[in-house]
């Protein structure tokens, strides 16, 4: 067996089992596929971040002086499309989910390892198509592709972007399919549903959404592309079509999609909070069922994106009430996390700092969602920076913080190395400060009337915009730091023990990094989830049995 670079005389694990490009590009090992995804989504994160940088630079000044209006349209469109479809939607499921789901249930791999590899290739093909689109003209319709602009008027590469997303969508569907079958069929003996880590419940709920929602945007994109190519009239009012039909079909997926983005992050945060409070999660079944409830209710609220688009006011009332209902399971989780922290033994390692950040920022984002669900308020703040701030609080303050927290928490397991804790805590702090400075001013900007998707604005909005751009720069630094020290740790980091955090969960009972088939022997589970009381119990001496 080829020896590793370092002098450790390493035990065989999934990283050193085989070397060579072929062994990675043709792997069916879920852990290697997770790393393939990690590299790819990080790449697209840079691309999406690059567009964000240009947007914030333009918005430093009230005049539209950095780019032309048409170019600015491309910037925010492409920022959204790349970040949503090529970073956020895959992120936690494709990286942490792929790596951990089999291990957490006690399996050797996912149910369909070759389908897993296929899902990565579909993502890459979609990604290459999107890159090509970006490099040869881009797309300017807004990430939402609204018709009839996208079908009849835009002069940009709508068809190519739509196809790229169509292909990437199948990657998402296959990942969800794999997770559901794995969780149902591959659990180790004794791993009952109520002993599963809540990370698994979260990914199960996410997978339901991926399965049922993504095909609808797939067919919607097909209709848009057909309409654009053949002038069919399905969405064109001049030909008898209804532009709102597009919006209904688009948002039927795209609203549940935001739950694809947040649920896995909630799962990560649950694991972290339990570990760094040294406590069972308060209200396990409530948290588990609320994940499912979020998935179900998430499908019932889509037209709250269309309150001022021209839908009937009676429909708007129905969707408004349902949108209030969907907040309840999320709130249940926040209460349960808080109750878990109460009287816990809190440790402030980097993953926990990200979890704390998540708690505060997700709560703010979620509450502002309720503002938007109220019809009267919505009329005032729709299409303003209020909306942008709301969803960035959830997607960045929530989902990305969870992603970073999870990457730190499981990095020792994934890489076999420890990251530098001091730098990690600093980075978490920088991210938190940078994030709030970027996006809090945007709530105010939106409330006082600055529209979204505009590249110029009245001078009285400049101060808040400058603050936001400054925050974005700090946030960028905060994101770069982990990339640097994670890479550094792969070569120079201290070797990680199997369970550096003394955490609960089957994944911590294998070496770091794990062997290719995860477990040397099939685990048999006889303990409940989050058995921190047992893990932290002081070692007892053998006591002779009293007569």
């Amino acid at each position, binding site marked *: 067996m080829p020896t590793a670079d370092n002098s450790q005389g390493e035990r065989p694990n999934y990283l050193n089992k085989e070397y060579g490009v072929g062994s990675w590009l043709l792997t069916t090992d879920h852990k290697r596929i997770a790393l393939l995804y990690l590299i790819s989504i990080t790449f697209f994160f840079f691309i999406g971040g690059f567009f964000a940088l240009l947007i914030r630079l333009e918005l430093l000044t009230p005049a539209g002086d950095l780019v032309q209006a048409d170019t600015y349209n491309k910037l925010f469109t492409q920022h959204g499309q790349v970040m949503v479809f090529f970073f956020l939607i895959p992120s936690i499921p494709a990286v942490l989910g792929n790596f951990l789901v089999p291990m957490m249930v006690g399996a050797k791999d996912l149910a*369909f390892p070759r389908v897993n590899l296929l899902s990565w290739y579909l993502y890459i093909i979609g990604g290459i198509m999107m890159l090509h689109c970006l490099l040869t003209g881009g797309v300017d319709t807004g990430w939402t592709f609204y018709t009839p602009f996208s079908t009849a008027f835009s002069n940009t590469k709508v068809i190519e972007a739509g196809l790229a997303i169509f292909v990437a969508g199948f990657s998402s569907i296959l990942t969800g399919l794999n997770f559901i079958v794995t969780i*149902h069929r*591959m659990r180790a003996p004794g791993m009952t549903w109520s002993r599963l880590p809540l990370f698994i419940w979260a990914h199960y709920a996410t997978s339901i959404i991926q399965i*049922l929602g993504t095909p*609808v945007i797939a*067919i919607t994109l097909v209709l848009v592309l057909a309409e654009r190519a053949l002038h*069919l009239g*399905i969405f064109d009012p001049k*030909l008898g079509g209804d532009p709102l039909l597009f919006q209904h079909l688009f948002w039927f997926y795209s609203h549940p999609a935001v739950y694809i983005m947040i649920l896995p992050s909630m799962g990560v945060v649950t694991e972290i909070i339990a570990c760094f409070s040294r406590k069972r999660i308060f209200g396990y079944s409530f948290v588990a069922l609320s994940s499912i409830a979020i998935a179900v209710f998430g499908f019932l609220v889509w037209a709250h994106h269309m309150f001022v688009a021209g839908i009937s006011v009676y429909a708007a009332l129905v969707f408004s009430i349902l949108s209030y209902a969907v907040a309840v399971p999320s709130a249940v989780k926040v209460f349960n996390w808080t109750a878990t922290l109460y009287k816990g033994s809190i440790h402030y390692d980097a993953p926990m700092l990200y979890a704390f950040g998540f708690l505060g920022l997700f709560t703010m984002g979620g509450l502002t969602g309720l503002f938007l669900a109220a019809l009267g308020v919505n009329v005032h703040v729709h299409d303003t920076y209020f909306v942008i701030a709301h969803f960035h609080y959830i997607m960045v303050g929530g989902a990305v913080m969870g992603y970073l927290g999870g990457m730190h928490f499981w990095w020792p397991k994934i890489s076999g190395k420890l990251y530098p804790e001091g730098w990690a805590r600093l980075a978490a702090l920088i991210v938190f400060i940078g994030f709030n400075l970027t996006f809090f001013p945007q709530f105010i900007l939106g409330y006082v009337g600055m529209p979204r998707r505009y590249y110029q604005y009245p001078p009285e909005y400049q101060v808040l915009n400058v603050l936001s751009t400054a925050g974005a720069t700090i946030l960028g630094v905060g994101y770069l730091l982990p990339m640097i020290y994670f890479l550094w740790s792969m070569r120079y980091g201290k070797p990680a023990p199997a369970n550096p955090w003394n955490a609960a969960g089957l994944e911590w009972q294998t070496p770091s990094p794990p062997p290719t088939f995860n477990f040397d022997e*099939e685990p048999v589970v006889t303990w409940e989830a989050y058995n921190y009381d047992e893990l932290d119990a002081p070692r007892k001496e053998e006591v002779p049995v009293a007569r």
Partner: protein
Amino acid sequence: MPDSSTAAAVHGEAHAETHNPALLHHFATEEQQRDASNLGMWIFLATEVMFFGGLFCAYLIYRLKYFGDFAAASTSIDAALGGTNTAVLICSSLTVVIAIWAAQRSRRALMIAMLVLTMLFGLTFLGIKGVEYRDKFVEHHVPGSSFSFEHEEIPGHPGEYANPQHAQIFFALYFIMTGLHALHMVVGLGIFTWLLWMAWKGRFTPDYHTPLEIGGLYWHFVDIIWIYLFPLLYLIDRHR
């Protein structure tokens, strides 16, 4: 930490039982593998239901909105051919289940005959579809620059003519829905070609014919989609 010799012993024990070469290593038993494949295909079919579902949603909304125009357009497609195609697919579903029945009883010749018959029915379906599409092309009912639907009466409303733009929406949905369905048939034929090859090679036994079962599920699903497409597209207001 258990060493690899234990793992080998456990693995060896598993091998001591009948070890079908089709059993993949990450599964503990053949039954687990079969159950997983079955569940996987059903979930895939769920995604297909939602995929077509978006089209059914668009169709529903426009049919209600432009009922007369849709009825006029619907009368111009051949319901007899559509009905025949429905019967063809129903027969093909029967031959699929008989093929599986045969596999369960090691009746190789019957299984292969049924698979061939299934594919012939599938090709017949596509042939009839081709005839229909050609008719539509000749009549200028294909959406696009050469579309024409002038002076077509709305059934039951003599003297009222269908709005060509609304009729074009019908035909757009007709072609997209039946076209997508036909594409799924073509994929199905590809799958069955592979199943036929496997059957010919003797890969299927009463203990193992999972690919047949899940290929069959896919085929039946394509049949079910057509069972809905036929009345919705071909039979709007035919009583006038």
